């Protein structure tokens, strides 16, 4: 208890010691050139609030700064020279002073700042930035500058905010190098880069810089080729602070290339989109296919000029299968409960359909097992009937005749009984199966769930044959 008491007394002292071990910094208001003073004040305030987060410096209270300036008869914005800054800093007891200016030229913002040592009067660090975008985006830049002015690397999350600065409803995505299968790592990287470039070109995603991603992976002890599992990708994605990760594989089988790409949500691990393509044709056509895949992955129609560049033959292009009540009914007709399971999957694992699938499958399998047992019993009894009857017809002794006749009749009765039970059971099984099919149809995925491009037959252009082709597709899932 005494030890804890001493420890509690010592802790505030320890924190104070740690706090005073950091150099103190005061941030003066920046000069405004071409934009309202209040906007500049807001931007500098963001710089001030971010500086303590760096853990490298201790920020001098703004009120204290204002009081000193008032006593000296100066306005903050009026103290722009290094000498003035050093003088104020000395009065504040600060070791460093940060001052600067923010200007606007057309659509560009400029930020210039420097950190001056109060003791020497020399500029310890200076940063300049030209930014194109909104003032909101500039707020993030001020946060980043807060780290950079104290010579620290900004955190990944902040860097991602920067890349998403121009807003919109973009998603943040990191793309892992595609797993090479039958091609070299370098080729896979090149194709991944092309994919990433095209994803960026869609304007639907904010991409994490490859270098940043590699750094995170290195920190986690992964090399690029070693992080192919979804778990690893999700881990890296979480560290990068992205919403989605894309990984995949590019394979080569003879003259055929396979491309598999999957985008999944980092937070849940759920697959957001999966695209597969099998391509047969020249290599440059493969690049085009990868570019097209990038657009499709982002849910955007590829540009016409890209589609016109298409070469070779896409023999398979897996898209989300259309979910229809009829498809559910057909599935349930083949395997009891399959249609309900199919519906459940269409409704994002809807539990009721999943339960029904289990019940239908279980009930019909159970009834099927009982039916099999009854059939076996009937068959065995029928075989006995025949065996005893044959012996009965040959028998000559009265006792033997009577005994065999009885055995044959008993076996026959047993076979008839089993057959009757089996008949009833099969009728019930048939009714249950019909109900299973009707249920699958009635509660099957509705039109709204059906894929928009629900085409069984469509007309496609085959550039290799230089002619249109009629294509028939059927989903097996």
């Amino acid at each position: 208890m005494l030890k804890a008491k001493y420890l509690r007394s010592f802790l505030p002292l320890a924190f104070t010691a740690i706090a005073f071990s950091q150099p103190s910094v005061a941030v003066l208001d920046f000069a405004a050139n071409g934009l309202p003073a209040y906007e500049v004040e807001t931007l500098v305030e963001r710089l001030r609030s971010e500086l303590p987060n760096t853990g490298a410096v201790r920020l001098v209270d703004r009120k204290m700064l204002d009081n000193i300036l008032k006593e000296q008869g100066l306005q903050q914005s009026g103290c722009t020279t290094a000498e003035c800054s050093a003088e104020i800093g000395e009065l504040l007891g600060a070791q460093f002073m940060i001052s600067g200016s923010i200007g606007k030229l057309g659509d560009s913002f400029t930020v210039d700042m420097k950190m001056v040592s109060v003791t020497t009067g020399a500029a310890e660090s200076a940063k300049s930035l030209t930014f194109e975008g909104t003032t909101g985006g500039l707020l993030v830049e001020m946060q980043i500058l807060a780290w950079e002015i104290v010579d620290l690397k900004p955190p990944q999350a902040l860097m991602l905010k920067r890349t998403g600065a121009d807003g919109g409803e973009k998603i943040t995505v990191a793309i892992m190098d595609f797993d090479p299968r039958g091609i070299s790592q370098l080729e896979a990287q090149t194709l991944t880069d092309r994919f990433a470039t095209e994803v960026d070109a869609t304007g639907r995603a904010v991409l994490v810089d490859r270098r940043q991603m590699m750094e995170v992976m290195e920190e986690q002890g992964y090399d690029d080729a070693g992080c192919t599992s979804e778990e690893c990708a999700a881990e890296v994605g979480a560290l990068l602070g992205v919403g989605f990760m894309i990984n995949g594989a590019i394979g080569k089988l003879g003259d055929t290339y396979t491309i598999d790409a999957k985008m999944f949500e980092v937070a849940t691990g759920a697959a957001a989109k999966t695209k597969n393509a099998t391509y047969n044709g020249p290599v440059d056509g493969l690049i085009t296919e990868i570019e097209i895949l990038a657009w499709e992955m982002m849910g955007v129609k590829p540009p016409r000029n890209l589609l016109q560049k298409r070469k070779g033959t896409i023999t398979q292009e897996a898209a989300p299968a259309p979910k229809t009540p009829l498809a559910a009914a057909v599935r349930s007709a083949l395997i009891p409960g399959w249609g309900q399971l199919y519906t459940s999957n269409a409704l994002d694992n809807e539990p009721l359909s999943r339960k029904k699938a289990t019940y239908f499958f279980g009930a019909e399998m159970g009834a099927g097992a009982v039916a099999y047992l009854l059939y076996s019993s009937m068959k065995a009894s029928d075989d006995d009937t025949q065996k005893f009857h044959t012996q009965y017809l040959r028998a000559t002794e009265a006792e033997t005749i009577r005994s065999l006749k009885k055995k044959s009749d008993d076996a026959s009765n047993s076979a008839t009984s089993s057959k009757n039970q089996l008949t009833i059971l099969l009728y019930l099984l048939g009714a249950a199966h019909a109900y299973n099919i009707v249920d699958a149809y009635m509660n099957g995925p509705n039109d709204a769930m059906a894929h928009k491009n629900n085409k069984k037959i469509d007309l496609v252009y085959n550039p290799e044959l230089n002619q249109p082709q009629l294509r028939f597709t059927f989903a097996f899932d």
Partner: protein
Amino acid sequence: MACDLYDNSELNPRDIDSNLTPGLVFDPVSRTAPVGAAAEFEVYVVAAENLSGVHAQVSYDPNRLSVTNVTSGDFFVDSVQTGQSSFFIYDDDPVAGVLDINYFYMGNEINKTGTGKIATILFNTKQSFAETLLEITDASELVDEDDVDIEILTKGTATVKTN
């Protein structure tokens, strides 16, 4: 259901109620044969007691059937092993359509109880017909060792069909 069960309704000709024995019967009770082919029947004595001799008279349609061959059964044969001998003789009248079969022990004070085969008859079908009847006639006899008649309570019939 499509799977049919075995039909065990066919009766053994020797399966006669004890109140209706002794009997003389055919086995089988029906045969189908092509024209010109043979149809084989066996004649059995059923549940006879103290039997020493059998006279089985079989009537048939001589226009449709002819007797090709008649062989002895084995009812009295086991007695040969004990030093007894049996006698078998048949007489066919192809005009009247009557076949007389005699099968008996040689000597006195010998008899047998039970069921057994008396003879095997081979008929030949002469022409095509739907059905013709074979009968054990009332002239048939069972006798004991004292040559006393044993009443025959069941006299069998059989049918021959052509296809």
